[in-house]
């Protein structure tokens, strides 16, 4: 496949590109879904092709063909340059690339149990069985699914990079929905999107879907008659680690994407409230807040050996003791900011242009625990498992809902609360964080459906997270 990628790059250079790179990708995926005891869908997909990126002046041209033959690759290279050249009539300042030594090497994710070696019958039995258990314990709608992605990619750049990688990603999800007279309540396990990682089938086995099915079904049913989360202008809020992963993803991860900060996403995904001139001095949160973007974490969903420009994976500090210190970047955006590339550029397939994506953007653990937070809270609310998420186009104002809440009174977890929501402004919210779970509660949550870009790309991102407590938060916003 290196020959195919090389042919594409050479064609783009011959057609006038000042820089070019090409990715040949072969992706095999599998998805199964069961509902109410019936295996409803089994899908297996294959994608194979080459995508070529050519730089001319201020614009990237990109062209992809669903074909891994050298002739098609050469045509794609020529077309990528032609597309880039067409941008000249509406051009800007020529784009530079941050310096990066050419990379050569191979990388594979760890996989203890090959998901393709597990029979479809076993996978189907697992999902059907979990949904039957949920039904038996009160779920009106019981759903379970698994996904496997197996990606081979070969990168060649005109600067001499030659990198091949093999990713196996795997995970599963299930949920129980209880239908009431006026509303529905849902409990998901282990999170709203399930749990995914750059791992093999062992991840799915560790989740123990069968062992958690009854509990979530009973919780969903109980939520129908639970009191509604009170509307309070300010209270102590404890978030479980799954909701913290969402909080990090939406209010930190997207906000520190350098392409957003530079305005490249202004018309679609939006911009950021962060101003590059303040990087290194702006207070993003409390001193407990330490956020890194680290693509080297074993098994996390946002891990890789090299990004799609060939930059080796490395940890990047994003927030250090509450101060904003870093961004997610690629070579083009980093050059504009005058920093080295953060190695965070990826494409979701051969037919998409690489762009800045989150790697594993996560919160480093503290020294407390969920139990100690509850014990230290006289009056507050505990929420977990994301249910809804909405944040403004600058990534500043958010309102998030969770599937489940509990009243906290006198240092103890009290009655169940339904429809818990909270809202805030990002730096104020993060500034109010005063307790943080410890290393034993550190979970590498995986988000397999992060949408960004035009045409839309679906990214796989990781979010190490722990439970945390926030003070003086508005909860219980209603329609």
């Amino acid at each position: 496949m290196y020959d195919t990628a090389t042919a594409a790059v050479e064609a783009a250079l011959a057609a006038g590109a000042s820089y070019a790179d090409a990715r040949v990708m072969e992706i095999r995926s599998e998805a199964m879904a069961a509902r109410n005891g019936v295996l409803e869908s089994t899908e297996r997909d294959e994608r194979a092709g080459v995508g070529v990126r050519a730089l001319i002046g201020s614009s990237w041209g990109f062209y992809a063909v669903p074909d891994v033959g050298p002739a098609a690759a050469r045509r794609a290279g020529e077309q990528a340059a032609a597309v880039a050249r067409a941008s000249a009539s509406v051009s800007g300042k020529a784009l530079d690339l941050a310096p990066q030594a050419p990379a050569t090497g191979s990388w594979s994710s760890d996989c203890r149990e090959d998901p393709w070696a597990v029979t479809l019958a076993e996978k189907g039995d697992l999902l059907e069985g979990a949904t039957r258990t949920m039904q038996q314990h009160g779920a009106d709608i019981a759903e379970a699914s698994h996904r496997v992605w197996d990606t081979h990619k070969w990168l060649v750049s005109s600067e001499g990079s030659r990198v091949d990688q093999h990713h196996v990603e795997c995970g599963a999800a299930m949920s129980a929905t209880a239908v009431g007279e006026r509303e529905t309540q849902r409990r998901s396990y282990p999170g709203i999107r399930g749990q995914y990682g750059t791992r093999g089938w062992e991840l799915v086995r560790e989740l123990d879907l069968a062992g958690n099915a009854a509990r979530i079904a009973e919780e969903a049913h109980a939520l129908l008659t639970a009191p509604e989360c009170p509307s309070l202008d300010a209270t102590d809020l404890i978030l479980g680690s799954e909701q913290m992963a969402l909080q990090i993803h939406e209010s930190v991860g997207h906000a520190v994407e350098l392409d957003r900060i530079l305005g490249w996403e202004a018309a679609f995904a939006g911009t950021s409230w962060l101003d590059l001139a303040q990087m290194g001095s702006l207070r993003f949160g409390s001193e407990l807040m330490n956020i890194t973007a680290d693509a080297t974490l074993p098994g996390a969903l946002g891990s890789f050996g090299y990004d799609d420009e060939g930059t080796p994976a490395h940890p990047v500090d994003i927030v250090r003791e509450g101060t904003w210190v870093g961004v997610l970047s690629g070579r083009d955006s980093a050059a504009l900011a005058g920093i080295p590339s953060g190695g965070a550029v990826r494409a979701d397939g051969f037919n998409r242009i690489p762009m800045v994506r989150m790697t594993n953007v996560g919160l480093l653990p503290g020294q407390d625990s969920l139990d100690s937070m509850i014990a230290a809270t006289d009056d507050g609310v505990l929420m977990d498992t994301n249910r809804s998420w909405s944040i403004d186009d600058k990534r500043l104002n958010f309102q998030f809902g969770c599937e489940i809440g509990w009243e906290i009174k006198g240092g103890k977890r009290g009655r169940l609360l339904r429809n818990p929501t909270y809202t805030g402004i990002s730096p104020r919210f993060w500034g109010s964080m005063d307790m943080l779970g410890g290393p034993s509660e550190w979970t590498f949550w995986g988000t397999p459906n992060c949408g960004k870009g035009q045409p839309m790309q679906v990214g796989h991102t990781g979010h190490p997270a722990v439970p945390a407590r926030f003070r003086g938060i508005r909860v219980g916003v209603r329609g």
Partner: protein
Amino acid sequence: MTGSGNGRGAAIDPNEVADRVLDMVRAKAAGAEAEVTIRTGTEALTRFAGSFIHQNVAEEKSHIALRVSLDGRTTSVSLDGQPSDDALGRLIDSALEAARVLPADPDWPGLAPVADAADAGHWDDATAEASPDERAQRVGDFVAAGTGLETAGSCVTNATYTAFANSAGQRLSGRATVAALDGIARTGTSDGSARAAAAGLAALDGRALGEHAASKARDAADATDLPPGRYEVLLEPSCVANLLQFLFVYGFNGRAVEEGRSFVQLGEAQFDPAITLRDDATHAGTVGVAFDAEGTPKRPLDLVRDGITAGILHTRRTAAKAETQSTGHAVEGATEWGALAENIVLEAGSRSPEELLASVGRGLLVTDFWYTRILDPRTQVVTGLTRNGVWLVEDGRIVRPISNLRFTQSFLEALAPGAVPGVGSDLSLVLGGFGGTFLVPSLHLASWNFTGGAQG
């Protein structure tokens, strides 16, 4: 028919590939039920930011989707790649291998019967052959019309050829083009947006859209806060499209109805009499082909007629459960979601946007919604924010620009009987989420619950 417009790439005849796949399935498993969809064509998008083109992308498509059922044991496979006999053979083997070991699906509804589909006619040769220079020209016009304001956005031209065939004898094919120009102009304190979409690129006037976006941005500059609370709203078409997608995905979807998650009550006056909603792939103003992923033809389908709930969307699976017929709303890969509408039409009223504005007592004119997420599907309570321009309106006149606001609102209540004082005549095509398209006018609504300012 070829699948590679603009002379790019080797020609692929989707009908030939579909027939070949079915022949190969028949040879490997004579009794198998099989359906295959082939999609070829090109997709291109020219993206600009900071008033220049920064990403310019294009791709050739070759997609083969196959669903096979052996005595109700059903599996789906797909290939994005070249349809060589070797590749198709592997694809079919993979499907058959899976189907043989899977449990039978008791709800397998069988294949679509033979039925003709209308030629929706949403095709434009010039758009199918559009060059990157033609997209750049529209972008250039938009940027120039910004007259000094920073601009950003995208121009899309897509051409898709689709062929469907199943082993029950159903054969359909169609083709569709889509062109869209969507952008913003920015003052530093405000953004203004403008967009247009159609089957043909010629319908997109970059200069007019750029002028509209720039005018909006300037009018929205130096906005001030307004206390949260309930206000009348005049929603522009993109907001209306955003609102309707929730009603369809979580309400008119046959799966949601079957499972008791939907608000839909057939025959009940659940909406204001001013609301008439349908799905209509053959409407002259929309885009796409007039059959679904299961090969069921799409006919115009009334969902709400003069405020009365009148219809439900079905796939073959949801229709079988409800003991009715599919309405042609299956989407590939979306079995879990159920039946999804792709050509939503909200019937226009007789009043211009200016006349609607004049009828607002005290309320807000809203350009776009942003990041709307459902809190409860049954009650249709949704939270989200405004974007790209909001103005306070008093006694029918725009008073001042307002900072963005967050809302938490039941979309069902917002359209309830008595809640819709006016429907605009400005029918506009909006390309929305979930792959759907919306042909919708502006709406004047009596009450909208704003729950916070964007700054807290």
